[in-house]
Every structure is written in structure tokens, then in C-alpha cells.
């Protein structure tokens, strides 16, 4: 995946407002053979979630247990580093989801 400082800056402007957003898992998969830039993270689950307003989002699931991979499981959006970067360059952040307990 090609990232440049200006691309990251443009993308990351909108992320903050989505942190903490809640949704439910619609579908999930576990990526076992990733693209090169994600090689150090595999295997990892990717989920499609549905928000309360029926809008859908896609992202990685983190801090997960096997039983979290099911339809209807509640998740919450968290800010995480996305890719391993050169230590001298800008850190790339993205939204990921983590299992959220029912309240």
C-alpha cells in the first residue's frame, strides 16, 4: 500500500470523529495470506460492521477471541497504528474495531 505524508494527513483528518463509534459484526474473515505490507500482522480478522444508522464500515478486528467472530457481536472503533513505518516518518493511524461488551 502506497502512503505518503500528504495522503496520510488528508485521510487522518476525519478519523478522530469516528473513534468510539459502535456497531455490530455482519460478516468476518481471517486473512492468512496478506499483501506484503501487512505480512507482520497475519493472520488477522477483517469484519464488516453495521452502525445504528445502518451505515456499514470495514476494518480489522483487534484484541479478539475466537468466540468474538460471530454475526451480531458488538464492536467499538479504536485508533491504532496501521502499517509498520520508517521510524523517521509520520506514523500512519487507522480505525480498527475491538469487541465491546453488552451494557
Amino acid at each position: 500500500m502506497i502512503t505518503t505524508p500528504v495522503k496520510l494527513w488528508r485521510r487522518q483528518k476525519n478519523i478522530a470523529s469516528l473513534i468510539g463509534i459502535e456497531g455490530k459484526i455482519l460478516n468476518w474473515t481471517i486473512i492468512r495470506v496478506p499483501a506484503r505490507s501487512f505480512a507482520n500482522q497475519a493472520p488477522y480478522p477483517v469484519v464488516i460492521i453495521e452502525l445504528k444508522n445502518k451505515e456499514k464500515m470495514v476494518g480489522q478486528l483487534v484484541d479478539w477471541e475466537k468466540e468474538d467472530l460471530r454475526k451480531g457481536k458488538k464492536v467499538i472503533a479504536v485508533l491504532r497504528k496501521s502499517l509498520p513505518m520508517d521510524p523517521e516518518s509520520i506514523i500512519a493511524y487507522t480505525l480498527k474495531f475491538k469487541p465491546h461488551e453488552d451494557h
Partner: protein
Amino acid sequence: MKIRIAGAATTEFGELWKTSPRELAREAITGALKDAGKKYDEIDALFVGNMLAGMLGNQANLGALFAEELGISVPAFRVEAACASGGLALHNAINSILAGQYKTVLVLGIEKMTDSSSDEVTAGLMAAGSDEERQAGLTFPGIYALMAQAYMDKYKVSEEVLASVSVKNHFHGSLNEKAQFRRLITVEDVMKSGRIADPLKLLDCSPISDGASAVIIEDENQKSSKPVFITASETASDTLSLHDRESFTTLSAVVRASRKAYEKTGIKPEDIDVAEIHDCFSIAEVIATEDLGFSKKGEGARDIQKGKRTIGKGKIITNPSGGLKACGHPVGATGIKQIVEITQQLRGQAGKRQVKDVKIGLTHNVGGSGSAAVIHILQN
């Protein structure tokens, strides 16, 4: 609409390390010209379908490149729509004839993938997806795995039933001397193969391939001894991201493009004798046979398992070439290879994999996760 296919040819598909893209193109085009009984100077224009040359080979400007290779300085175009690049190149070539701009047009589909490592190809193919999907670390097997999971959950279909798609396509591939894989596999082989993106396993996925295919088309006023006509060429687009769609168990672009093709020709799904389907993954062929109206919703996988799409057994035969799974999937070439296969089927030249009494054929070429769909109907 009636466009005549004057010539059609394909190279072998596979890991063709000894062969350069220029050599692949020349072999496919020479074959199509010989088949048409035409010379280079009879070609008015060249359309090239290709996805990855810019990313993997650092080579753009493919129209001029292949025109130069052939020694013809005709108008030349490169068309890109991910894995539907070949089909969309043909669609544009047809439009150029219908517009009265050219009379005889050469369409080349080509891809050289095995020069790169599989993780580079995986990343390159993700250029067909959205930025959100790339950030999520999704891959194309991953996106189709999400569809497979949605389908299996909705219609209570098992991984074993899905596996029967690859078993059928390997059987067909075993009859095709141009296919990358010509060996039979079993449901057990599929189930035992390594997991790529759950629930899809290695043998649910089409391979990384090299290959080129070419067709020469012309307006119907030109004379030809082996007439095969394209009677419909329709395309539709959809969102880049899977998650932005209402349903994950149907591809709306395929439904819309195929309905238009059926309406314009007056042909019904049950009239189709043979179809080349874009089975980039086992689940893709299942959903396609339903979207095209061959099977009822939720029945596509079980119909394939029962043999309804198998040569010598079924009615609407799908992927006699072996499909993307067994014939191979050099992405830009696939849409044109499908046309070559149906042309040979309609002429009765398909050898061991000949489907009986073929009068009407269809090709189904998909880009991305269904963001581009191209449907062609071919008839004698």
C-alpha cells in the same frame, strides 16, 4: 446489434517464465489473424485490455507498445477495469465499430503476473478495491471470503458444496490443452488445501497466471466463412467497496448488465447452452449462475454439485475451458479468453471439451468485487 468475430486465438495460460509480454501478444495476435485469414494491414485499430503492467512491470502506454511490436501504426488504446479489462476492451472496440469509426478491430487481452512474487501481485490486485478496504488489510480472496461467508450463512451451504465448483472446473480444465491446470481434483483435495481467507482455501482460488488472448471483430458487412456473431455487449458498474452495497450475496452490476443483454436479444437465461463465468473464486461462480438466471437464488452451488453445469451431464454448461480456476487467470486476458472459448464452442472446434448442440453462448467478466461487469452474448 451484430458484430462478426473474424478470428480468435489464445496462448497457453500458466507460469510462462520463458515468454515475454511482447512474445505472448505476438503469439495470440498471429493466431487470431491466421484464424481470420487476415494480414496486419487489414487492422484499423487495436484495443488492449490489461490491468497490472504499470504497477508490476513499470510499463504503461500499452496501445503504442503492442502496435509497435506488430509493426502497425494504427490507433491504439489501453482499457482498464481490473479483472474485467479484457471484456471492457472488447465492449469499447465494438462501440468504435458501431460508431462507424473503424471496420476491422483487433482486441488483445494480456497479463504478465508471474514475474512478481505473490504478495506483490496480491497488493497490486488490491488497486481494484477501495482505500478503506486496503487500509483494513483486505485482499481479494478476503473480500470474496466475506461474500462466501454471507452466502453460506444465508442459504445454509457447506464448504464441501462450494468445493464442487473447483472440482468441476478442474475436470473441464483437464480437457483443455491451453489450461494452466489439467489435473483432476476431489472435494477432499479442496478441503485439505491451505486456508487463504476463511472460509476460502487455496483450491477455491484462481491462480496467478501469464497469458494473452486476441479476437478480431468487424462489422457484419464483411465476408467470413465461419460466422459467429456478438449479439449483445453490455456493461455496468457498482461501488468499489463491498461493504457499501445492500447485499453481499448478489452482484448488482452483473444483474443489470445481463438483464440488458437479455432484453436486447430477446434471449432468456434458459436459452443459453454454454457460458464462460468469471470464477475468480468458487463462490463467484455460484453467485454468477444465480445473478445470470441459470439457477434460483440459493440453489447455484447445489446445482453445480449435482452436475447441472458439467460437460456431458448438465444443461447450461459453465466454464468448459476450466474457467479462471483451472484454465488460469491472467487478469487482462481472461475476458478475451472467454470470447475465444465460446467462439470455438459455437464453431464446434472445442475438441474434447465440446458441448453438444451449442447455439447460444454467454460470457461473464467481472472487475474488482463486482464494481465492473461485462456481459457478451454470442450466436451462430
